[in-house]
């Protein structure tokens, strides 16, 4: 069980934060282009899910699985989007994303009046807390490449 990388987008589609722990393949695009592509894909998936759902959706899109990785998605009511790529066996990732929102983003970004919410997060304490939270969660197990 391992975590590959995380993206955090705000409601306007700006990439606020990206970090990777265990990424084995790069896309060959710049981080910015990759972020735009990721956001566009997520936006389309959300719209797709809303249309194809047989009953009224509540939380909407949760995750998708491919043969090699799972992409987990968590969106807050304020339009903040958390994306976590893990291996296909990961459990309890939604709770982890919720903890990242509750315990790291709200505490160290929202409550810091000096940080602009629509710009990339530069706070060192945010990075450190996020890293610590992910590393001590059962989802993360460092895989020796």
């Amino acid at each position, binding site marked *: 069980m391992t975590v590959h990388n995380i993206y955090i987008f705000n409601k306007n589609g700006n990439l606020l934060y990206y970090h990777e722990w265990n990424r084995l393949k790069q*896309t060959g695009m710049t981080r910015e282009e*990759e972020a735009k592509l990721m956001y566009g894909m997520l936006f389309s998936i959300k719209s797709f899910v809303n249309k194809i759902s047989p009953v009224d959706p509540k939380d*909407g*899109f949760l995750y*998708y699985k491919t*043969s090699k*990785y799972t992409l987990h998605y968590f969106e807050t009511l304020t339009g903040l989007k958390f994306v976590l790529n893990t291996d296909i066996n990961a459990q309890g990732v939604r709770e982890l994303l919720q903890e990242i929102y509750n315990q790291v983003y709200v505490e160290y970004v929202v409550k810091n009046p000096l940080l602009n919410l629509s710009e990339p997060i530069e706070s060192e304490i945010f990075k450190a807390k996020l890293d610590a939270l992910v590393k001590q969660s059962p989802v993360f197990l460092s895989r020796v490449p």
Partner: protein
Amino acid sequence: MVIYSIYIVSKSGGLIFNHDHSVSKIENEKPFTFPVDLKLKYENKRIIVEFGQKDGIRPGHVLYAVNGKGLTDRQLDDGQDVFEVLENKNNYPLNLKFGRPKMTTNEKIFLASMFYPLFAIASQLSPEPKCSGIEVLEADTFKLYCFQTLTGVKMIAVADRSQNGVESLLKKIYELYADYALKNPFYSLEMPIRCELFETNLKTLLDVMEKSGIANI
């Protein structure tokens, strides 16, 4: 344990088959007094609930009928503008019917062609090498399974979250496709599948699946 719909998408991304096996119809007809306590707005040639809820009617639901009269765009079948009817106190009490927006065939074609690029981007953005496209997509109200054959045709099933055996179901559908569509000399590849035998067999397969589970097929 329900299978909602099946879609088959060709290699080029066009929808070649669609079957809605079990689509729940969510419709609510309720009496309303003046003023209507739901906020309605006109969007995309439909009147939808912007905000507010009442007895099962939710934001996003579409207005289908006023006092039993259907409506197209902004107008009732008898020619009146719906918003004018709603503003006029004398028309109350009114019976308004709302429902979840149903997908038109065009929308389904659009969705199917939207799925293929998402599938490809998922593979491109993969943090691991040699990754396939989307195999399972889960939301809180359904689970979508996608089986891509080696020829690039995608079999997609939208089912209830607790439904099991959908991957084997999709493989069985592939077999049916190989039999009743491809072996039919009058069916052209990449065109919409209009073979009765395929549809009937598919329906039987889905019924058996729902009643007794995948093990019995």
